[in-house]
């Protein structure tokens, strides 16, 4: 359950962060694939490193992979003004094709659609191996990283001049420009960081669970991040409980998997999300009318 919530924290945060800067990041799916592959590559390429170095390096690679991918979309928007929704959707296709090529033709393990396993020094430990709680669950320390990143992002957005600039540019670009802010720089920066967050979500699967990169691992988590961000009203802290709620839905689906058709589960999940969005929206309107 919390294992399922972990990647949603990152993709939700990614979408929310871009939203705060006035952009719609549909590309979390692609960024997360690139990030996950980068983390896997760092995992199986560097083999002689102690874990204290290898794990941070893997984290950096995951972030950098997603960030680089989103940088393209952000740069295109800032430079030629092409809309980030189109940019990120197209980059999703390219990202999936790219990792598919890399997995199938360059780093292939025969008869599979996955990369070689990463070195044990890059494994991010599971909770049950450290604490004894959550035994049998692949729930791992990436969740803690997620919480830290959310808290840090929340602090930056709220309390720093940079965060203030990001919020301003997200609400009112003209006012931001008149106030002397560099909109283009902010656009590229926010998109890049948002991509980095999405990239980190690959750690959960690659370093925390299977220890390799496998095609199709993301299962739409990037898109689900949009719903998470919406319900959390783009608040980095609120992302955490909302992601956990979505994790519960996913997990519940897996539990009753043998009893009901998969489609029913999907429909129920979708209905739950729709109702949650509607209810929060209605509630908000009630409050604002008050």
């Amino acid at each position, binding site marked *: 359950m919390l294992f399922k919530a972990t990647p949603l924290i990152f993709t939700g945060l990614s979408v929310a962060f871009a939203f705060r800067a006035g952009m719609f990041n549909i590309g979390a799916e692609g960024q997360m694939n690139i990030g996950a592959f980068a983390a896997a590559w760092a995992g199986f390429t560097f083999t002689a490193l102690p874990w204290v170095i290898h794990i941070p390096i893997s984290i950096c690679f995951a972030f950098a992979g997603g960030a680089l991918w989103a940088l393209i979309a952000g740069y295109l928007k800032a430079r030629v003004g092409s809309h980030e929704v189109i940019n990120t959707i197209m980059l999703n296709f390219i990202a999936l094709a790219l990792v598919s090529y890399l997995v199938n033709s360059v780093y292939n393990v025969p008869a599979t659609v996955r990369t070689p396993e990463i070195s044990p020094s890059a494994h991010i430990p599971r909770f049950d191996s450290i604490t004894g709680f959550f035994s049998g669950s692949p729930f791992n320390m990436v969740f803690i990283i997620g919480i830290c990143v959310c808290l840090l992002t929340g602090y930056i957005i709220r309390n720093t001049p940079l965060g203030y600039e990001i919020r*301003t540019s997200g609400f*009112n670009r*003209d006012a931001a420009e008149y106030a002397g802010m560099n909109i283009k720089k902010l656009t590229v920066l926010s998109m890049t960081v948002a991509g980095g967050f999405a990239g980190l979500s690959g750690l959960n699967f690659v370093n925390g669970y299977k220890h390799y990169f496998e095609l199709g691992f993301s299962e739409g988590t990037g898109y689900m991040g949009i719903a998470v961000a919406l319900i959390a009203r783009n608040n980095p802290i609120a992302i955490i409980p909302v992601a956990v709620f979505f994790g519960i839905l996913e997990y519940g689906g897996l539990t009753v998997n043998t009893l009901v058709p998969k489609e029913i589960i999907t429909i129920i999940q979708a209905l739950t999300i729709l109702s949650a969005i509607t209810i929060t929206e209605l509630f908000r309107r009630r409050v604002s009318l008050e």
Partner: protein
Amino acid sequence: MTDISVEMIGISKRFGKIQALDKVNFAAPSGEITSVVGENGAGKSTLMKILYGMSKPDTGEIRLNGKTVKINSTSDAIKHGIGMVHQHFMLADGLTAFENIIIGDERTGKSGLIKFKSLRHEIRSLMKVTGLEIDLDVRTEDLPVGVQQKIEIIKLLYRDSRILILDEPTAVLTPQEVNEFFSSLRKLAESGKTVILITHKIDEVLSVSNSVTVLKRGKVIASYSSESLTRETLASALSGEKIHTTRLEKKNHSCEVLLDVKDLSVTNDRGVTVINGISFEVKKGEILGIAGVEGNGQTELMEALCGIRKYQGEIKINGEKPNTSQIAHIPADRLKEGIVKEFSVEENILLGRHRERKFSEHYRINFRTLRKFTKFIIEEYDVNPPYPESLITGLSGGNQQKVVAGRELTKDSTLIIASQPTRGLDINATEFIHNRLIIEASKAKAVIIISSDLDELLKLSHRIAVLYRGSFSAILESSETNEQEIGLYMTGLK
């Protein structure tokens, strides 16, 4: 007896905690011009929006010719013969005047095609009757605003509107255009139309309207018929109390040049040159007014001076290239450029000043200093309600403008550029901002005021430059000129 065309009885409307309208009674007889006046946030626009179906009243009823009607949408309003010209015109660029008039009501013949010929004929005769003559085949974006306004009115007549609501119609017109406009309005009223004028200019009310309704904080505080009305009674009814700020007089300036602009050319977003090689200078302590019909390059000139638009030529402050932190700027479009609606008052105070040392240290915003400073501005600028943490949109337009002015004028600047600094403000707020600008100029700063309110320019500035099609058609000493002369330069007639 004239039969009463519009009656609004006991209209109330609440927005959240604010009672925008409180049991308002309003009547506008046909064949007359009725003015609705009041300060910012008095409820004028809300009342008219209710009549035009853009907003629904909580209580109260609307009667047309004595019959109660329900107006749930603008299309209902149009069906009942109500038409409105908004402050910002709703014309489609790229279409001709004729096309703009028939848009939304393109009458077709049996063949299913638009009856161009007979429609054209119909519009021609409308123009003849009302005296609103225009060329039907010119694209509207090339026409001056005065003509665009005529198109808007003809559009309403074409739709057989019998009740015409005009929201601040003269804000964009030159003095000559205003006179012409008023005579057309009188003609329309004589032909039996009901004309409702929303305005806050006392002179307009006195010169055209048959009766006046004064709103204050959502209540009707007075209704007059024009015969019994003098300037003084209306002015004191409008401000509620006597105007309480004493007017400062502008001071003499030094001869030392502060801002020096040479051969400045600027292009707009579409790459068209809109400022065409202008040169001017502003001295220390001087207030330079820039007059001109909107859209003659004011926006681009101001953006170039502020350093947010590329330009050719030379801009120098005290002989050096300007640094944006030296410039304080009150933007023309407050909601779009001056504030962030989603922010609180204090977050808006921070706008553009967030990198100043006193507000940010060690990559962290110093909220305590900000709170203190916001309270200082609230006190100094008399902002109401006085809460730093309340949302800026909870304030009336005038108070929002005070926040913007407070933020900009307390900057450690050498040049102040104020675009339409008092647009839409009531008398007291206007006086207040005017005094502030005079005080800042007296600190040996240079002040540029871009405004379409000639009265304001004549009162505040030492010299007035008139911008016409991207060049200065004249730079006049304001003690030696008047509105009429400036108006002629504005339209390129002189």
